[in-house]
């Protein structure tokens, strides 16, 4: 199973905003229970969408600036980036089907 790599304040620009593929960023923190439930779903999706969508995770404790920039006030939050812009978001724990819809929309 492919684990989403970490992205930080320092690498966000290159890894996410300048990516030529759509990017799904999982905003999480170690103390957040529901985040730990979302993580395995995101890993499964990373396998299923391998090559089409890039999957990254951002620790909101460590990368405070990026979390603040995108107005993250609740985690888990998944942000879908396309062409350097946040185009969709999923707040809280949601079933896999909901997440697939967001990914498919970004690829359409």
């Amino acid at each position, binding site marked *: 199973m492919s684990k989403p790599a970490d992205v930080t304040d320092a690498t966000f620009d290159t890894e996410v905003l300048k990516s030529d593929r759509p990017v799904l960023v999982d905003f999480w923190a170690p*103390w957040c229970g*529901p*985040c730990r439930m979302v993580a395995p779903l995101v890993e499964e999706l990373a396998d299923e969408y391998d090559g089409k969508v890039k999957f990254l995770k951002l620790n909101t404790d460590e990368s405070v600036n990026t979390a603040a920039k995108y107005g993250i006030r*609740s985690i888990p939050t998944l942000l879908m980036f396309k062409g350097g812009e946040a185009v969709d978001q999923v707040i809280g*724990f949601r079933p896999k089907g909901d997440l697939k819809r967001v990914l498919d929309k970004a690829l359409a």
Partner: protein
Amino acid sequence: MARQTYDIVIIGGGPAGLAAGLYAARARRGTVLLEKGVIGGQISLTELVENYPGVPSVNGFDLAQTMLKQAESCGLETQFAETTAVEQKGRLWLVRTTGDEYVAKAVIVTAGADYNKLGVPGEERLTGRGVSYCATCDAAFFKGQHVAVVGGGDAAMDEGLFTTRHVDKATVIHRRDRLRASAILQERAFANPKLEFVWNTVVTEIVGDEAVTGVRLHNLETREDSTMDVAAVFVFIGQHPNTDFLRGLVSMDEGGHIVVNEWMETGLPGLYAAGDARQNAARQVVSSAGDGATAAIAAEHYIGSNFAAEELGLRSSS
């Protein structure tokens, strides 16, 4: 859509369902537990469980994972799907879900409860933008700020106390003139210098454009309206049982809680309800687990005396 056959189907993966699963699996019944969201249910959002005997203090998510591993090691299967209907088919039960269908000899409903929303303007729109139902998840985003905590029960105090690790000030807004929370939590809450209390007051609106900037309040005694500037609103005003998919099938009270006897029997042969979904539940981890064990033992007796040995231990798909 596949149809799967089990001895026992358990609907809901909170403490009641996990305990029922442990007992059913140890009785060597083919058992599947269906969960629509997060294993552990409400406790997966609880920072600390401190009243489960034998476990002095544990994170709720971790406790649920431990319960799951224990039950799975005895043979419990888990599948993720939301149940949409339960139907009686002769001596058997059919459970319809958003995924597969399940046929079972007995069904244990441990679907638990979800938190209530305030139902005021601004709440829906600002959810995730300052409106939160999980302080452990979101309080850290409001470091050094002033937040509101709505409610007066155990959850409101637990979560309100948790917010004070991060925020500068948390104001508890409660519609009555005293708390309903257990005495030990009240002691901690009143002793915490960061917690303030506004009594006899309800929230009538949550305001903010991009994010929460305040709440409008109405005092039920003086009938005065006011506004309070806050960066977040944490809502803990009780819960409602997840029993809509059983309406018309079993007896329920006005709040939608399923009526059962002391063996968690609903009155329909082979159908049980346990934990927060049932009437008169104590709504504690330990009582829910006890309920789940009772229901599994009752289901085991029912199956043993109503089905022949060769019909049991089934686990097949078609």
